[in-house]
């Protein structure tokens, strides 16, 4: 079982090609959270993510380890970008590899739910400059 949970400053780089699952696994689910062009109806240029990095990584690791074990995943990777993230770029990347699709889908969904409840990261929308939209 491979579990990786990291807070990353700067663009996310996926270090291994998607789809390498090994013989026993039939499901690989990948999710990317992308910054939208508006927040609460107002146009934005991006989101500046504030983060308690040490605690966030500890909480992400705890969540990922528990879910990987519970769903008996082959692999669970979660990367969260912090600092300024422009509109259209990825702020969150999750990948789960499992024997069957149900476990992979549910593990990804549950990880995101727990992340949004427990991981100390906050959004600061960056206002769009005039002419950006």
């Amino acid at each position, binding site marked *: 079982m491979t579990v990786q949970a990291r807070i990353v400053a700067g663009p996310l780089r996926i270090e291994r090609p998607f789809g390498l699952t090994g013989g026993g696994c039939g499901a690989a689910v990948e999710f990317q959270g992308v910054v939208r062009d508006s927040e609460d109806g107002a146009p934005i240029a991006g989101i500046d993510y504030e983060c308690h990095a040490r605690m966030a990584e500890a909480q992400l690791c705890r969540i990922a380890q528990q879910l990987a074990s519970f769903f008996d995943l082959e692999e669970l990777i979660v990367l969260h970008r912090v600092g300024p993230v422009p509109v259209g770029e990825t702020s969150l990347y999750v990948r789960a590899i499992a024997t069957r699709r149900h476990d992979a889908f549910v593990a990804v969904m549950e990880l*995101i739910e727990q992340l949004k409840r*427990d991981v100390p990261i906050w959004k600061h929308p960056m206002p769009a400059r005039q002419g950006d939209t």
Partner: protein
Amino acid sequence: MRVEILLWAQMRLAAGTERIEMELPGGARLADALDALYRLHPVLAAHRATARAAVGDEYADADVMLHDGDEISLIPPVQGG
């Protein structure tokens, strides 16, 4: 004993600082630190109902015993993703 309180997001902005040091009597619990903090910094009191507290890297209950040098983080509702 001395503890350090770290403030994040809207609490950091409200207080105008990211850390506050506090002197507490021996045997103090997390609730004692929070009571003292909100009494000394009423600008933060509006967040008391929604902010969670952590000691070190783990969320903690109000009755947890504190130790000299502990780092307490106040975590307003998170917004990752």
